[in-house]
């Protein structure tokens, strides 16, 4: 006859096991949501880059021609309103130019590999500030998490790996912590993580309502019909640029005659 001696767990120990499991699953869920958010942000960022390069630059060109037209009109028929108009259109043209040729236009296409995504998942699970032991740990994790997000959006798997290695496997439990204290800490962490999942959800719906997300959606809908919205839009603006250029030429000729 074989005997097996099993020590019966105390109710606190049982509860602690249950809570540890719950924490693990909440961590997984949180990492998943963080990944979704990071993916969506990166997708919008790369779409914005494409939009600025393909259409934005044409708007900048159009605004530039319109500013030139306003300036010519101001010198043809000088008045306070005409010169104010010219100044305002020029300002707008400069702003458009700056916005379209800035950092955002350099965003490249984002196609995360399966490896990159699982690295991110792992990092979010381990590093997320919600699972900090104390305030100092929290600060460190917040900083690292920002780096994780940045590395992910750059598609930099090496950097992600490095952050993970650096972080290492910091001990989960706090030394000298009793069962009661650990239970309280874990419950607090679960609560915090759930709050965070809700916050990510809110952030996602805010992003979905943004102009760029809606334009992206329109472009995807058009793609379903075998159309390329950005290309069509670019063609449309290009026509308007051509019109503006013609108008500018006519005005320039008029100004020459007027000058003589």
């Amino acid at each position, binding site marked *: 006859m074989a005997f097996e001696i099993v020590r019966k767990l105390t109710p606190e120990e049982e509860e602690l096991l249950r809570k540890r499991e719950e924490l693990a699953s909440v961590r997984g869920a949180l990492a998943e949501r963080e990944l979704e958010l990071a993916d969506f942000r990166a997708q919008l960022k790369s779409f*914005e880059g494409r*939009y*600025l390069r393909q*259409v*934005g630059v044409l*708007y900048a060109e159009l605004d530039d021609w319109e500013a030139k037209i306003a300036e010519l009109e101001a010198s043809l028929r000088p008045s306070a309103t005409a010169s104010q108009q010219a100044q305002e259109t020029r300002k707008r043209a400069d*702003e*458009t130019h*700056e*916005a*379209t040729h*800035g950092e*955002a236009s350099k965003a490249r296409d984002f196609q995360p590999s399966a490896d990159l995504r699982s690295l991110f998942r792992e990092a979010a699970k381990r590093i997320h500030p919600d699972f900090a032991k104390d305030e100092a740990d929290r*600060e460190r994790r*917040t*900083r690292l998490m*920002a780096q994780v997000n940045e590395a992910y959006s750059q598609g930099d798997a090496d950097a992600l790996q490095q952050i993970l290695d650096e972080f290492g496997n910091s001990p989960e439990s706090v030394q000298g912590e009793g069962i009661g204290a650990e239970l309280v800490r874990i419950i607090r962490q679960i609560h915090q993580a759930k709050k965070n999942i809700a916050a990510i959800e809110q952030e996602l719906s805010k992003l979905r309502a*943004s*102009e*760029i997300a*809606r*334009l992206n959606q*329109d472009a995807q809908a*058009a793609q379903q019909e075998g159309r390329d*919205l950005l290309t*069509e*839009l670019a063609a*449309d*603006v290009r026509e308007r640029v051509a019109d503006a250029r013609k108008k500018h030429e006519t005005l320039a000729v008029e100004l020459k005659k007027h000058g003589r």
Partner: protein
Amino acid sequence: MADEHELLILPTSLDSSIILWETRSGLIARGRRDAASLLARESAHKLLAEVGSGKTPGLIQLEDARAQYERGRSYSRGEGVAKDYAQAAFWYRRSADQGYFGAQCMLGIFYNDGRGVAQDYAQAALWHRRAANQGFETSQFCLGCLYYYGRGVTQDYLQAAIWYRKAADQGNAPAQHGLGSLYYHGRGFKQDFTQAALWYRKAAEQGYASAQAMLGAVYVTGKGVSEDYSEAYFWFYLAAERETEADKVAPHQKARDSAAAMLTPSQLTGVQERIYSWKAMHR
């Protein structure tokens, strides 16, 4: 420590980057507005093109034209008003002028028959052509007939074939029959009994008596199909029963009976059973 963290989140020069961000989202909103008007313009174009080709008659916006057509039809049928072809022609004309294909077709028929207007094949061809170009099958068939007989247009079997084919593809049985006849007699293109049998069959399956009789004849002669008296009997029987023109009934019956004479009693019973089930399905 806290400062270092802040720096990671906040851009170094806050003001200029907020302005930049605002311009950028303004620029995106601008793109969205332009894209929306672009798409609206496109779909309006598409809608117009569809209405023009008659693909979506349900989408026609010409409510007035439709009402005028209905009014013309009431006069034509004497529904709610005294029957008056001249009045009917007047209202059809008003509707047809606005491009309503139903009225264009009716006006074509009126000119063809000299009903409410002076008989005029050229006018008939003109109005049928307008409706036919909108994809209306009845007018496509009528225009094919005008070409076939050279009424109001220069006689042209190929043009007849083209318009028959357009109507036939839309399931118009008389046009399918007409197309079968063109193939059968080699008019408009090379004689082709297989094609003839194929188009006769399409019209015959729809219960068009003339085509049923021709299909029966095809089975007797074995042109384009293999000779089969059961099939011949089958189609002659239906043709004799369905024929609406009185003087054609007797020849169909005669053909049916001579086909029957070629069949054994059991063959005859078999084909009669098939006739009953065909009739049950095409009631």
